């Protein structure tokens, strides 16, 4: 009710404006729009700005008054407060930034109001006027509520899994081939990615999306389907419980393990290893530049024993692409070094398999400076642990710069083992290798030493691949991380405790002897 009232007030304040103040606001809104928005959204507000073709999703077209984030009933216009909120907060997972730190509140209000001028007719249409949703306070998200939500999510009553998949990773049966109201491809949201929720992953935001739907997208309103708002709250509680967040640590702690290291990703031993969920972004350093990677996060864990080290990589991918044509992608002609997003899943480009790669410096000697983060350089090459879903093959390679072709290490040095599973839109992969390489080409994993690593990932159905072009230059349409560090946390051997004890006894004994001698002298 409070939220509703706030919206009502915001809406009232917006529509009540008239006279010179309104005119000033309109001029301000127009100026802000031209300065800040038109580059993406276009002079005409039709979402066709100069950079629109390189963005996925494309910038919003304002000429139909359709907005994703609405607090109004499905089929009615959003509240002006919704527009203000979107401009202020931005839309995660898209190119729309949060403007609240750049524009003043007055400027944001003015530009939100100005957006309406691109479809004045609809905004003036009383028959589709905003009908605010009553959100209210969320109930406590206890286990029972979450369990009820899970039941709805997977069961007959809501069937969310049809699109969002069993585990909520956006990989349901109907996920492939979806389009929005502008015939642009899009996929059901991966609900485990808390950082990608367009309108927020808190229960109130999810309840609002469930009730209103997401206009212009395949996400329908569940108000008719679940008329009891307790059900929508339960669903919101469950969905919210799925949302994870990215790690902000930069050092991965590899845990010591007794006995042979696990060779499979589902081994319970992994529970003892801390996980970092690391962000990846598109490779935009070297042309062709790729700003729409599908894999934006990889979970990493590491375990080690006296001989071996093992990494467990976990990442979400809606489609299991295991065939690779080996063909170079057709790059758009023209001067832009950025590649436009693929139009359709696996149909407008050759088949590419899914791949992942761990990057380490080829050597740790030579000071603290790490190799250049995109495949190093001739002076400071990198070692790669690469896994390809085509053939499920793991290889160790060396590369000396992003544009140099990677070279497989000699067979004698191929000591990398890998085992992967793919289920419910998720890969789980275990890499393992002796800590001290036989060929001396790679780094040794010594305990206590911070070892830099980075991750590269390819989603085949998103048109991602690396190849060497006719001129012999390596090209990369892929997702990549920055450098992180892994530290094999030194295991404290029992002898450490023994020597400590000996030292304490020795010191105490020495003191006693000294004290006795001094006393005797006195």
């Amino acid at each position, binding site marked *: *009710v*409070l939220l*509703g*009232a706030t919206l*009502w*007030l915001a809406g009232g304040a917006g529509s009540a404006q008239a006279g010179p103040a309104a005119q000033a606001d309109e001029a301000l809104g127009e100026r802000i729009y031209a300065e800040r928005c038109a580059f993406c959204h276009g002079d005409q507000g039709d979402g066709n700005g100069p950079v629109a073709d390189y963005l996925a999703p494309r910038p919003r077209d304002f000429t139909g008054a*359709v907005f994703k984030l609405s607090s109004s*009933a*499905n*089929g*009615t*216009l959003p509240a002006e407060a919704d527009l203000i909120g979107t401009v202020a907060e931005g839309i995660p997972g898209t190119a729309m930034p949060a403007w609240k730190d750049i524009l003043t509140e007055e400027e944001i209000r003015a530009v939100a109001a100005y957006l309406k001028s691109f479809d004045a007719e*609809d905004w003036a*249409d*009383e*028959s*589709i006027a905003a*009908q*605010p949703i*009553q959100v209210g306070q969320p109930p406590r998200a206890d286990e029972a509520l979450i369990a009820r939500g899970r039941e709805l999510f997977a069961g*007959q*009553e*809501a*069937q969310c899994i*049809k*699109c969002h998949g069993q585990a909520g990773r956006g990989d349901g*049966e*109907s996920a492939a*081939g*979806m389009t929005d*109201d502008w015939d642009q491809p899009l996929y059901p949201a991966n609900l485990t990615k808390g950082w990608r929720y367009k309108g927020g992953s808190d229960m109130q935001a999810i309840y609002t999306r469930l009730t209103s*739907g997401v*206009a*212009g*997208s*395949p*996400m*329908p*309103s*569940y*108000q*008719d*389907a679940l*008329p*009891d*708002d307790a059900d929508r709250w339960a669903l919101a509680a469950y969905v919210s419980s799925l949302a994870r967040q990215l790690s902000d640590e930069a050092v991965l702690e590899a845990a010591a393990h007794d006995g042979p290291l696990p060779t499979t990703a589902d081994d319970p031993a992994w529970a003892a290893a801390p996980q970092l969920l690391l962000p990846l972004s598109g490779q935009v350093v070297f042309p062709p530049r790729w700003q729409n990677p599908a894999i934006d996060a990889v979970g990493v864990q590491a375990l080690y024993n006296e001989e071996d080290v093992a990494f467990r990589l976990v990442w979400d991918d809606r489609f299991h692409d295991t065939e690779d044509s080996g063909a170079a992608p057709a790059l758009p002609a023209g001067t832009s070094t950025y590649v436009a997003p693929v139009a359709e899943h696996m149909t407008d480009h050759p088949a590419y398999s899914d791949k992942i790669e761990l990057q380490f410096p080829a050597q740790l000697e030579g000071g603290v400076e790490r190799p250049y983060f995109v495949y190093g350089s001739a002076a400071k090459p990198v070692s790669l642990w690469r896994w390809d879903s085509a053939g499920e093959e793991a290889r160790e390679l060396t590369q000396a710069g992003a544009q140099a072709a990677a070279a497989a290490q000699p067979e004698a040095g191929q000591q990398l083992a890998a085992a992967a599973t793919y289920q419910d839109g998720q890969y789980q992969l275990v890499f393992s290798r002796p800590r001290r390489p036989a060929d001396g080409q790679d780094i040794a994993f010594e305990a206590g030493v911070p070892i830099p690593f980075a991750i590269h990932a390819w989603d085949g159905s998103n048109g991602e691949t690396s190849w060497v072009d006719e001129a012999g230059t390596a090209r990369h349409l892929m997702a990549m991380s920055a450098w992180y560090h892994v530290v094999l946390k030194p295991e404290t051997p029992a002898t450490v405790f023994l020597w400590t004890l000996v030292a304490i006894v020795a010191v105490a004994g020495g003191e006693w002897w000294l004290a006795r001698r001094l006393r005797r002298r006195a």
Partner: protein
Amino acid sequence: MMRTATLGLTLLLLLGLAACGGGTESGTTPAGEAAESGAGEEAAPPAGEVAESPVDPATAGTVSGKVSFSGTPPENEPIDMSGEPDCAAQYADSPAQETVLVNSDGTLQNAFVYVKSGLGDLTFPVPSEPVVLDQSGCRYHPHVLGIQVGQPLEIVNSDPVLHNIHPQPTENRAFNVSQPTQGMKSTKTFTKPEVMIPVGCDVHDWMSAHIGVLEHPYFAVTGEDGSFSLPNLPPGDYTLVVWHEQFGEQEEQVTVGPSETKTADFSYAGSTG
């Protein structure tokens, strides 16, 4: 100082009242009822104000005719329903799209015939009788339908599978509702005339229907005999249009005299090969 404080307090009180008012008003509406309100429910005339028909039955005429087809009709695209066994089981043969349905007598089904102009300023009563759009066997029934502005559209899910009803109009406001359970019904209205509005289901991308929305009752969809009839037309000069999803639109001028019955036939040609 005191005055400012009083003013501020009054203002706060007023705001509080307004906020409470807003809250209770909407708060008393049960969610179930609110669900019924769709795009532009307000467009339907309030009960008790149903307009009288402006047509004098004594002089009203009729336009009727047939929509025929010549040549070889294109094959309808097969539908892969293997992902929905409950729907697939309803078909003896493998299901296909209903894009082009030619009857055995050479007439065409699912052609939408309507009066595009000639009615002037006449306004017509809005039927309270709903038009039903049924989802059955993971297809829409009917495939093409007409409805008046403000007339209720009752959307029914006869399938035991999830559908979402997602029309994509250009004149009207789009809506998108989920119907996960068998037997579920939703009622919606359109507020503006629009020929045609494509309707689809994002869960089953093969599902397709077309809705023609008009401000008057002079429209018809051809069936198994390819014929149509537009009765109760006031005398006048009309532009008649036939629409077909594959073959496009055709226009014909018709003059209807008092109590006259006019024939207007249309003909589409497929490939002659």
